[in-house]
């Protein structure tokens, strides 16, 4: 499995039957490929779909939040942007999965701007992180060896204190009121490896092998 596949398949185990889920662009999008058998999950696309289906090459009338041709499933609906963000901001989304430039042990996320370098904008990310019941971050553990999981984000924030779970190719970590707990480590790595590549202070007391990985 590639790093991306490890991250996406592990996050898919967090989905519950009946959840309404919003997936961000990039690795988060892959989570849809690993919905556990027997669970029915409804995906929302922020541009206005409840019941987002798979990608459809050449489709131009239905697009997903990345602007790619997509489909709508039976029972789905098309909605305007205000209604879409009523779902998002109003606490009607059970789980959102988003990428990160940086994420910290206090559950704060930076994902939308590198001042002076890259300013793509926040799109719907600030609303999603603020409004979804559970925020899961899907990210590589480091950016070419430089830790992305920090004591405190250095880049401008997307939102403060909203992240619940961080899943990387190395580990699963949960933000709790007393700090960042290391829950699971991928069998290819040791706890020491994770600590070495993590800037944040990890609370380590009951670590398990990463679920869903052979």
């Amino acid at each position, binding site marked *: 499995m590639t790093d991306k596949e490890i991250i996406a398949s592990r996050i898919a185990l967090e989905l519950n039957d009946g959840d309404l889920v919003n997936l961000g662009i990039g690795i988060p999008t892959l989570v849809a490929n690993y919905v556990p058998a027997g669970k029915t999950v409804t995906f929302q*696309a*922020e*541009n*206005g*779909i409840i019941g987002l289906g798979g990608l459809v090459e050449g489709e*131009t*009338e*239905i*697009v997903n939040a*990345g*602007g790619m041709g997509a489909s*709508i499933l039976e029972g789905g609906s*098309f*909605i*305007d*942007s*205000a209604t*879409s*963000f009523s779902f*998002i*901001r109003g606490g009607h989304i059970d789980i959102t999965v988003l990428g990160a430039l940086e994420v910290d042990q206090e559950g*704060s996320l930076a994902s939308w*701007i590198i001042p*002076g370098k*890259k*300013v*793509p*904008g*926040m*799109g*719907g*990310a*600030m*609303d999603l992180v*603020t*409004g979804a019941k559970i925020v899961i971050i899907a990210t590589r553990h480091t950016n070419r060896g430089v830790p992305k999981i920090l004591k405190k984000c250095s880049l*401008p*924030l*997307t*939102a*403060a*204190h909203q992240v619940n779970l961080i899943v990387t190719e190395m580990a699963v970590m949960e933000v709790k009121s007393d700090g960042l707990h290391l829950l699971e480590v991928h069998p290819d790595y040791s706890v020491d490896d994770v600590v070495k590549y993590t800037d944040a202070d990890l609370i380590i007391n009951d670590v398990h092998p990463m679920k869903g990985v052979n």
Partner: protein
Amino acid sequence: MKSIINGEKFKTLLKDGMSIMVGGFLTNGTPESLIDLVIESNVKDLTIICNDGGFPDKGVGRLVVNNQVKKIIASHIGTNPIIGSLMSEEKLEVELVPQGTLAERIRAFGAGLGGILTPTGLDTLVEEGKQIITIHNKKYLLEEALGADLALVGGAIADNYGNLKYNKTMRNFNPLIATACKVVVCEPLKIIAEINPENVITPHPFVDYIWVGEYND
């Protein structure tokens, strides 16, 4: 039939320095023919309000490339690198607004509200210069309502009365901007006799003109 507008009449609505809201999400549901006409008119110093910056060759991005835009208000400009470079050269003003906040500011204006209270953007750069208001022990940012001079609505199926429904995901910001501008022009995908009243998304009083191509009058 709702007032039909041709290209020539449409251009008389365009003025230097005006603000224009344009529907569409990454150009899905953007009225490209109306943008063609704005480009032909070559009006300048526009303030463009749109979900995103489109692409250099598609959507509102074309107006930026044609040097007609003074300021753009959007949630995302990452798909149009020209916007990023003009911004860093300080040739273009960019106001980035969280997407849900942008939608709701527009909706609020159309509904006659002065603004909205949202938790989105608290503790971020977005809160700079804005009032924070506490209600039931929860903090919110005060975001002002946002209207404009002209709305360019796309992605719609119109009927003879000027009622609109929208094609698939082309709805996005289109029904919102149709409520929030002094003049609303729609470039429909097609016109049918009558939309079932239960399916009308934008009732005809919101719509001023339907553009149906150059050769109609």
